[in-house]
């Protein structure tokens, strides 16, 4: 995409070109582009894995793979989608947009930024390499414990677990470096006059994400390190025989794992209101209320972890505490939903692709949020837990709430980043196909869960057949519709109608004051905010 940028500004011709440009770049836009491209590729890798699973689950009986391979696919699918698709996409936008939105020339720590990115491809390789090694008879394939690494199963597991642990370490370091960079940039590089309470919501969302990452990624790193020493160096952190407890791993893991959900969602909660205000042609409602709500959610995120394993057994006071604190998350979220809809209310709305995605996102993420509220109920959770109900719930929050949000952001900023308009027709088609097939995939899974189908099983009883078949067919439609997305992005990067500087009639914010695409070095002269 940014090749065009260089062509426009030959004063930067001294920059290395070709592969060296991308290996050594410290430019926030180049790095952002790399993050986004990487994320898109990994989205398809993770997607291909889940389509393998949905093909297997198309009807009862084993069709394509044995249970061992099935278990590997589910875990690696999740790790790739979370760590290699969703998080890098959010980081990509952070790199591209935070300097533009706060009027900074670049990110504060450009070299760190480059390292942060280049840790990702090796970790993606580490995650998937055991699949290939197994073909040559080395080891028994990738991580087969699900993405949660629960011991003792993960202590029992093969080399796939070690590879995944190292991959998680690298991904963790990359995220922490990225977060440090975001915090320093936001604190030190804002344009004169841009106070914290004048920052665009996306910057706020990312700032809280960055703090959550710094607080929780090291806990994950610690937990998987303990797992590694339990596996190879004779420690017994998670082994009752040596005085440990397997359930402690779940506490450590979800102390990271629950904030991780908000790490994935906070950036989206940041730019969705910006999209809404743009296409409603009026400023967002309740800016302060939204900022406080984001902080509220960030704070609650680290105190509710144990609701992921109510069935592991806990004293009643602990159950009650985690139930009520989990329910409390709905309070700031209710405020956010109210503000989003109030932003649209009595606006002058038009429905270009980003707006379609944003509106669809509110509805679908709403379903994810509300099912989360019922999941908080301990007694009912005994039924929902580890059933397909949970699978459907977290895909409403992470596919609809996460990935469809990222898609909204992509269409919103793509003209700014490339300087060309994407095809509105294809974009709208992509939205409708995605939204419909997404619901067709996951609504049946709610019913499967209620009927009693556990997750992570390679084969199932006959009573679950119909819903699984619908879900599988819809999943393939969902997967194939994403090709439209790629086609639209690639053709937009290559050419098309020129985008204006402002791109959208109602666009607000500093990034829209720059040319489309922005020059290689944005804001050589810092703007002043009144």
């Amino acid at each position: 995409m940014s090749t065009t940028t260089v062509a426009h500004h030959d004063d930067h011709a001294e920059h290395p070109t070709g592969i060296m440009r991308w290996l050594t770049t410290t430019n926030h836009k180049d790095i952002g582009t790399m993050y986004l491209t990487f994320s898109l590729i990994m989205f398809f890798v993770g997607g291909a894995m889940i389509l393998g699973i949905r093909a297997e689950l198309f009807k009862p009986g084993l069709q394509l793979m044995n249970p061992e391979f099935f278990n590997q696919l589910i875990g690696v699918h999740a790790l790739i989608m979370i760590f290699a698709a969703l998080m890098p996409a959010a980081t990509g936008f952070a790199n591209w947009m935070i300097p533009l939105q706060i009027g900074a020339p670049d990110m504060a720590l450009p070299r760190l930024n480059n390292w942060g990115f280049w840790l990702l491809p090796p970790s993606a390789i580490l995650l998937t390499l055991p699949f290939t090694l197994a073909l040559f008879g080395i080891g028994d394939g990738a991580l087969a414990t699900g993405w949660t690494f629960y011991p003792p199963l993960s202590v029992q597991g093969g080399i796939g677990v070690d590879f995944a642990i190292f991959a998680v370490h690298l991904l963790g370091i990359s995220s922490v470096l990225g977060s440090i960079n975001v915090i320093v940039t936001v604190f030190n590089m804002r344009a004169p006059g841009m106070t914290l309470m004048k920052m665009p919501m996306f910057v706020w969302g990312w700032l809280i994400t960055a703090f959550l990452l710094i607080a929780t990624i090291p806990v994950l790193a610690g937990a998987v390190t303990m797992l590694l020493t339990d596996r190879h160096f004779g420690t017994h952190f998670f082994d009752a025989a040596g005085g440990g407890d397997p359930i402690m791993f779940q506490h450590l893991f979800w102390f990271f794992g629950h904030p991780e959900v908000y790490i994935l969602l906070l950036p989206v909660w940041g730019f969705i209101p910006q999209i809404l205000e743009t296409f409603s042609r009026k400023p967002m409602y309740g800016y302060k209320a939204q900022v406080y709500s984001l902080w509220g959610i960030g704070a609650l995120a680290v105190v509710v972890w144990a609701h992921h394993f109510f069935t592991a057994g806990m004293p009643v006071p602990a159950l009650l505490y985690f139930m009520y604190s989990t329910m409390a998350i709905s309070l700031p979220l209710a405020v956010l939903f109210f503000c989003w809809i109030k932003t649209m209310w009595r606006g002058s709305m038009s429905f270009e692709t980003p707006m379609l995605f944003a509106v669809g996102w509110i509805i679908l993420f709403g379903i994810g949020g509300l099912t989360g509220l019922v999941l908080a109920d301990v007694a009912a959770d005994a039924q929902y837990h580890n059933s397909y109900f949970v699978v459907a719930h977290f895909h409403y929050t992470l596919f609809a709430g996460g990935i469809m949000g990222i898609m909204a952001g992509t269409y919103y900023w793509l003209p700014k980043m490339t300087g060309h308009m994407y095809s509105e027709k294809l974009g709208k088609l992509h939205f409708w196909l995605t939204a419909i097939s997404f619901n067709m995939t996951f609504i049946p899974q709610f019913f499967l869960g209620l009927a009693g189908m556990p997750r992570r099983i390679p084969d199932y009883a006959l009573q679950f057949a119909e819903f699984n078949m619908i879900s599988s067919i819809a999943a393939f439609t969902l997967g194939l519709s994403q090709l439209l997305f790629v086609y639209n992005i690639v053709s937009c990067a290559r050419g098309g109608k020129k985008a204006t500087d402002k791109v959208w009639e109602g666009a607000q914010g500093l990034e829209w004051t720059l040319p489309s695409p922005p020059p290689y070095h944005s804001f050589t002269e810092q703007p002043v905010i009144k």
Partner: protein
Amino acid sequence: MVCGVYVFNMALNEEPKVKAPENLTAKEQLDLKNKKLVRKLLWLVVGSLLFAFALVPLYDVLCSLTGLNGKTQNSAALAAKAKVDNSRWVTVQFTSSVMPGLGWNFYPKQTSIRLHPGQIETVLFVAKNITNEVVVGQAVPSITPGIAAANLKKIECFCFVRQSLKPGEEKEMPLRFFVSPELPKDVSDMTLSYSFFPAVSQSK
């Protein structure tokens, strides 16, 4: 990761030019400010990492206080303070598991006992080594409901230390315990289970 952070911190400290603040250009001032903040954030990262490892002992403390995981304290309790509460009865049930790799039979001699809180009782567990080698085992206790874990006090238990049995040897292992009178009033039944594992080094 700690190492990485440390090296990284070193690299940052290695700033050769030392200029008086007033002589710095705006860019250098910003760099300095950035580095200061980065260093603070790195301490935050290190802090979180330490916190992760501190959670291990914290978890144990929390568990022994609240019975979070049903683990009992593996150390002798003092019997002196216990006052017998004759007004109520508590039933303690016993069960056992032998974990893979341990060539023993192991079972409680009596499956349950009824007693008053504060009353000191001794129960026996029977273990027999059915291999022709000396085998060392470690018993791991667990109690349900969790709330009872903190209230079952052991004065003497075979689970405090590893047990070694000669080939074919059979041993009656005593457990001397009482139920604390502080046991919540609504708990009338509890179960104590021992899982016998092949002994491992107690490193943690």
